[in-house]
């Protein structure tokens, strides 16, 4: 039971909104101590895992390009393009993105999206612009709500699309685990059963985006 202290540290730390970096480091060290490792071994393991997981930082490599484009008006251009589309609303822009993200992810093209590459420079500005074209300047909390929805849409799209692709890491993980336990299945047999959830995810999240449009309309039209 003792190694669970790390889990407790994480839950408590995040609940109390302490600095997340400190919380995670404290939890990792506490877990190591609870497992009976000595301090040098813990820090060594820490460094080994830190180096091994450097790939998680690769998303930041896109920032020089995105930053340069932003300086030259990428967001403003994305907004101008959307403002010209008749009938564009925040919810509709995001629903189209949800559909594209799910479809491409289901073909294994998960890198055709993402928060640094697509959401910040293109999707979020377009979703904001669609509301701005209708209702004028947006209050800060509305702007933040739309941005949060843009990020959420990317996540929902990729999570509930990618498992339909037979060579996706998660499908192969399921297959490998079941193989080890004596159930021999092809990746296709597993991937097929992700389709009903993918459809449900599109319907549920699409309905929420439709609802978002109604909320924006109610809040912003009254103001104008």
């Amino acid at each position, binding site marked *: 039971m003792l190694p*669970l202290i790390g*889990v407790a540290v994480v839950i408590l730390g995040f609940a109390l909104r302490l600095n997340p970096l400190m919380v995670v480091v404290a939890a*990792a060290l506490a877990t190591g101590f609870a497992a009976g490792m000595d301090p040098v071994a813990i820090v060594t393991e820490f460094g080994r895992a830190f180096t091994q997981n450097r790939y*998680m930082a690769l998303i930041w490599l896109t920032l020089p390009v995105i930053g340069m484009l932003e300086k030259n*008006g990428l967001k403003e251009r994305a907004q101008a393009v959307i403002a010209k589309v008749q009938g564009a609303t925040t919810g509709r822009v995001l629903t189209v993105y949800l559909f594209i993200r799910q479809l491409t992810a289901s073909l294994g093209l998960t890198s055709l999206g993402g928060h640094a590459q697509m959401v*910040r420079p293109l999707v979020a500005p377009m979703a904001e612009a669609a509301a701005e074209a209708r209702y004028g300047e947006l209050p800060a909390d509305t702007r933040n709500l739309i941005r949060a929805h843009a990020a959420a849409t990317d996540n929902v799209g990729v999570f*509930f699309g990618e498992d339909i692709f037979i060579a996706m890491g998660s499908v192969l993980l*399921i297959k490998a685990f079941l193989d080890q336990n004596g159930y021999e299945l092809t990746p296709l047999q597993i991937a097929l059963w992700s389709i009903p959830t993918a459809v449900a995810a599109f319907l549920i999240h699409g309905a929420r985006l439709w609802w978002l449009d109604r909320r924006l309309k109610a809040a912003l039209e009254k103001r104008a």
Partner: protein
Amino acid sequence: MSALDFIYWLLGLMFAAAAWFNLKDSGNPKRYKRASFWGLYAVTFLAGTWLPPFVTGCLAIAMALLAGIDGLGKAGAVEAAPEQRRVAAARFGNKLFVPALLIPLVTVAGTLILQETVTRGQPLVAAKDATLVALGIAVLVALAVGLWMLRQPFAVPLTESRRLMDAVGAVAVLPQLLAVLGAMFALAGVGKIVAAQAGWFIPVENDFTVVLAYCAGMALFTLIMGNAFAAFPVMTAGIGLPLIVLKHHGDPAVMGAIGMLAGYCGTLMTPLAANFNIVPAALLELPDQNGVIKVQIPTGLALLVVNTLLMYFLVFRH
């Protein structure tokens, strides 16, 4: 030296630039602290492959202390004025989309090409690294095209990446630190302990409660571990296989596929999945760190219910 090391160098240079610009920012009261933070991070990329793990561990912990004790303060760099950006947008028009769209397109094309390329009987790039190396190449291509199309000075990408890195702040390291925590959990056998505790309170005779326990367990465990891949083997060995498949004769393919997706519902709702939930909040400069999670909770809960019902109706279908 692998192709991936080259990409890590580029990343290291970018963080080194962020450190340098922060160091030169004499108006910022925390400039030495900020420069040290990005500088240490740069070292772990420039030298990480050769540094002893113990040293890297010390550097990473030092970074957390720099960010954790009294914070890194406010960013110094400012965005270009809105007027200036509007003028540039009108001047360049749709050309601006070209470099932005080149990143995902070249990444996809590059991944496909790299996976197929074999030299002297060896794959050019290890299969698991193909997407990462392709992303690096895509960024270089987009950068070259962007610099040429927009006639930008070479310093602009570096000063601008510093501006964005500063806007994201220390949270940039969080996904990597959480991966370290996951490795520690695995070493200490945290998953096995949780699974051993989970088994004894489920009413095992009822086929619905078994499915409910498995799906809810996947979501809950993912919530705690921040990663459905970590939850899957534990929950499936503990509940899925013995109860759904062996005892109630469920279909293992349905159980595995929908079980994983139930875990993803948990991913939508946890700050521990930082790369999906906390990093975008920072990237979009939301005042609330949990802003994205709050928006995702209704979808996550609704889909968890749907997954549980889908599994119940599909797994025992014969």
